[in-house]
């Protein structure tokens, strides 16, 4: 296991871009929560507040042509990979301008153009896919990597173990990104896994290279993800990225979190990745507000776009069942 030391290799402007990306996710999610509570949005939604640095750090490290599979908590990954906020928001509103044309919704965001193989609402569902895609890249000798995001809760499901085993056995061009936020819905890590506080032990069992990283430090996430992606790209084998992070809100919007102590929530709040980056960049109030206003404006434009989007025709439901 390699512990990635902060190299501080990224320049200030890159970090400012990361901050823009993270703030976009944060404000996007806050608006989504607000609109859901107002009864504007159908379905079942999960926000990634607290985990923005993972999405931005990993997605910024990916190259064009790389593909990824996401989870039910997908808004952040999708935005960080560059899908326009308007298309993501329109999808949440079930409009045909949405990134899945209204067929997917919050838990099924896709964007093939940007390598998004789909947010998956079955825990661990996308892990075999990135194993297979990573195999295809290897068979075709393509310099591409397939990456999956998943949470600590996914490390107990069969697809996780079958996929890591197969990927390591065949040295596929795959990166497994475990976002360990210490919660499997309402069940804390210590109740669901014997290695909840060190998920890289899971990789050890498959003889897979793993990298542990602080998921609240976007710079460190970027460095670690870059290292993981380049190792996988070289064809030497898959990498398990063990990312420690925090889920600052509930499992889903409306989750009262009765299972969570005040201390636990405070600890999460104290580890806000945006605050960390702001401090790292030593941004004053005015300067930070400028970033924030910009993020809010983008999200408000996305909201307006989505609210004025086009509803599918009911009978469109029968299209796209087959290619």
């Amino acid at each position, binding site marked *: 296991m390699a512990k990635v030391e902060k190299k501080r290799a990224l320049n200030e402007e890159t970090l400012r871009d990361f901050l823009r990306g993270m703030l976009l996710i944060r404000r996007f999610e806050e608006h989504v929560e607000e609109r859901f509570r107002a009864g504007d949005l159908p379905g079942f939604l999960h926000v990634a507040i607290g985990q923005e640095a993972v999405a931005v750090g990993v997605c910024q490290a990916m190259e064009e042509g790389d*593909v990824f599979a996401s989870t039910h908590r997908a808004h952040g990954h999708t935005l960080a990979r560059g899908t326009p906020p308007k298309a993501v928001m329109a999808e949440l509103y079930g409009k045909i301008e*949405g990134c*899945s*044309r*209204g*067929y*997917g919704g919050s838990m*099924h965001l*896709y*964007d*093939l153009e940007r390598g998004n*193989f*789909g947010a*998956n609402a*079955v825990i661990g*569902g996308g*892990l*075999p*896919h*990135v*194993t*297979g*895609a*990573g*195999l*295809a*890249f290897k*068979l*075709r000798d393509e310099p591409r990597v*397939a990456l999956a995001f998943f949470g600590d809760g996914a490390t107990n499901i*069969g*697809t996780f173990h*079958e*996929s890591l*085993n*197969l990927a390591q*056995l*065949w040295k596929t061009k795959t990166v497994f990104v475990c976002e360990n936020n210490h919660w499997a819905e309402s069940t804390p890590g210590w109740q669901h896994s014997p290695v909840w506080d060190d998920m890289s032990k899971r990789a050890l069992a498959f003889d897979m290279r793993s990298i542990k990283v602080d998921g609240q430090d976007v710079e460190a996430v970027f460095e670690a993800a870059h290292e993981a992606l380049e190792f996988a790209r070289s064809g030497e084998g898959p990498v398990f990225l063990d990312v420690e992070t925090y889920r600052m809100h509930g499992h889903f919007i409306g989750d009262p979190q009765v299972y969570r102590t005040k201390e636990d929530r405070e600890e999460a709040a104290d580890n806000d990745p945006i605050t960390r980056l702001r401090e790292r960049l030593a941004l004053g109030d005015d300067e930070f507000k400028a970033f924030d206003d910009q993020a809010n404006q983008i999200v408000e434009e996305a909201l307006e776009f989505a609210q004025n989007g086009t509803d599918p025709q009911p009978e469109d439901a029968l*299209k*796209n*069942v*087959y*290619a």
Partner: protein
Amino acid sequence: MTYREAVRDALGSAMRKDEDVFIMGEDIAEMGGSMAVTQGLLEEFGPERVRNTPISEMAIVGAGIGAAMAGMRPVVEIMYEDFLTLSLEQIVNQAAKHRYMSGGQLKVPLTVRTQGGAGWSPGAQHAQQLEAWLVHVPGLKVAYPSMPEDVRGLLWTAIYDDNPVILFEHRLLYPVKGQVPEELEPIPLGKARTIREGTDVTVIAIGPLVHRAVGAAKQAEEEGISVEIIDPRTLQPLDEDALVASVKKTNRAVVAHEAVTRMGFGAEVAAVLQYKAFDYLDAPIERVGAKFAPLAFAPVMEQFIIPQPEDVLAAIKRTVGK
């Protein structure tokens, strides 16, 4: 050519033509598959394209999905269709739905081959017929060929279809010989085949029941009953027109499969026929299938559960009031 050779020929032909086609499954390489279907393919195509897998049905199918989404045309083998149940999450929630959930952006050109079937007393976990489970899922195509020519042509088409296709083979059919065209001829999915023409009753049968129906039809003929046999070959999409046209001609129908009768594929066929050929039916539609029990081990019990040629014959006779 035997049914087994026909499957192998389709796989080999596609792999020869196209670098994007590769196969993976349990014991398919050196051993040549537990049914000896893939024998010789490792020698010809090498271990990169003929891949032995761990015993990991979810990963086998799921990696196939990922490779398909990345642009390849994998063919995966699930050794027994009983084990298909282990991979159903990936088949039902993933393969069948990526195109739809993405609003038409993705395609999953994956072929899943599997086999099953009773008649050799393996007990309850190695011989089930579960095709009805898969036909029920929008987004999947399902084929169940009964003849060497059909399995060769349909497997080829399945490989080149841009949708996930589940192809069922039957263990007892592998040694069955049949005429095949010199050159591999693709057979479209969704086209039924008339196995035998007749005028009094139509037997719509799949898999081994096609062969059992042929035996029953010969006996019925001796008793003056003219039996037409139609093999849909593809269960989804279903060639409803061919089935309905035949029943409109004969006015009587028997549906037959080795799977459990209740909620089986034949129930759907019967529903289609009663709706589309209601005014033409002169008798209730008869259904032939396995009795509602897991498959027993003792040969006498196993044979009691699964449908025999005599069961098909008895159903035929009931439709004509004999």
